């Protein structure tokens, strides 16, 4: 089951670059929340603060509080622990090139010391089914490498890999932007189904996609969150003129 995320006064820097300013936000559990905004507005940085991937850059700095459920992820836990509870899917599919499909899905578990063969088989199957890839690969699990699949399949493989560690939150950074329309639709349908089990945060450039999959949407601009509301409100009658200018394409 998913948990809610509460963000309080989050500020983030890359060196001297003040990337996120005073972000306050409540992301409800078991819903999909979309984050939209122009390039460079900080939405990807924000999402990376939610699983402390922001810190993999040595010049990155964060202040503020992020609560995942009841856990203060910056005070009460280590990055490695957080990342097992908050999974991430990236813009370009990145399966491990030296591993088979099976090993890719099981990677998060195997690399953390989990080796129970039977249980792994079950988890791999369940994850691949949850990411709507099982039928296409069930005969080639150990024979084909993860990198030999098509783009859309690779992305679903990455989703399965993220799901296999049983996270509570799934962060998706423009998951379909490198995919064709059919694959995109499949991913969107998937998000719809996954919502009931996980809390999903999806960064997207594609507003129609946000409108299709997310109940709530946040609009980021220049490092600030300008408006956060139900997707319906944002796209039919947003409160802030800047939001409206962005979604109607009137941006300068």
């Amino acid at each position, binding site marked *: 089951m998913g948990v809610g995320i509460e963000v309080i006064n989050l500020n983030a820097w890359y060196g001297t670059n003040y990337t996120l300013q005073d972000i306050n936000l409540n992301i409800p559990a078991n819903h999909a929340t979309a984050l939209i905004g122009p390039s460079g507005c900080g939405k990807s940085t924000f999402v990376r603060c939610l699983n402390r991937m922001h810190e993999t850059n040595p010049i990155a700095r964060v202040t503020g509080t992020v609560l995942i459920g009841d856990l203060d992820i910056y005070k009460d836990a280590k990055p490695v622990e*957080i990342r097992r509870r908050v999974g991430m899917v990236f813009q370009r599919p*990145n399966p*491990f090139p030296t591993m*088979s499909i099976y090993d890719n899905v099981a990677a*998060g578990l195997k*690399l953390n010391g989990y080796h129970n063969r039977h249980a792994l088989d079950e988890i791999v199957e369940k994850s691949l089914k949850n990411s709507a890839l099982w039928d296409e690969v069930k005969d080639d699990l150990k024979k*084909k490498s993860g990198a030999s699949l098509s783009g859309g399949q690779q992305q679903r493989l990455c989703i399965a890999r993220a799901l296999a*560690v049983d996270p509570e939150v799934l962060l998706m950074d423009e998951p379909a932007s490198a995919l064709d329309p059919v694959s995109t639709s499949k991913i969107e349908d998937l998000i719809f189904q996954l919502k009931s089990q996980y809390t999903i945060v999806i960064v997207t450039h594609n507003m129609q996609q946000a409108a299709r999959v997310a109940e709530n949407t946040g609009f980021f601009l220049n490092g600030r969150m300008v408006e956060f509301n139900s997707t319906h409100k944002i796209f039919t009658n947003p409160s802030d003129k800047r939001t409206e200018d962005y979604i109607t394409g009137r941006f300068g």
Partner: protein
Amino acid sequence: MGGHKLPTEHKLRARIRTLADGAATGLAVLSTVLVVAPLVAIFVYLIYKGASSLNWAFFTHNPAPVGELGGGMANAIVGSAILLAVGSLIGVPVGISGGIFLAEFGRGTKLANAVRFTADVLNGVPSIVMGIAVYSLIVVPQGHFSAFSGGVALGIMMIPTVCRTTEEMLLMVPNAVREAALALGVPNWRSVLAITVKTASPGIITGCMLAFARVAGETAPLIFTAFGNVGWSAKLSEPIAALPLQIYVYALSPYDEWHRLAWAGALVLIVLIVVAVSLVRYVTSRGVLKGAS
């Protein structure tokens, strides 16, 4: 296509382009031939000069006393194998660890820059100087020549190549792969070893083989360390024969018999290097999955 005629000027330009294209292709082929030709020539010449001296005895007998016919280089072949084994045991782990440090843990730090600089300097040290250095550091305190000191000399010479190649191959692993592992909650050290290094392993192995092939033929560092041995020896604490060393000694000798053996030895040395490298390639490629790049 309709009958759209090109003006004459365009035709001329097109013809020049085709000629230029052909000329460039020709130059490329010629260059390739020029590069490969010496290699082939050497190989052919070695076969011509050395193959006739190859017999079963060559591989099983030690050198015969001066003046006698026959004999072989069995001890040198085994000696080279031992020296290279010791050298690899030193050079490969140290080099790979250094490469991993440079690429994954120390990127941008002053320490990494210092390490890299040291490796580059080490690479430039003449092999004879390397031999003298190991002589002072190991042979003199121990009081005798030894296979061990020869192995150390070779090992140190392997380090820069292995280290730099490892670093380069690791840097070529796309960051996306590292991020994927980190995002799964895998600790950094584990991600480096299990994922990044594994992804770069074909390149790293190539680096090791390059270093191996280079030191397999080194003679100068062995002169003051392994020293050579006319008899049989497989002990690390004793002087040991080595193929390149033996070839060198025999080639400089005044005896025709020894010259014959030197040619044969040179041929065997090259063939053994090729075989060793191919074997490693074959064994490691068996593990690669279908479809992986």
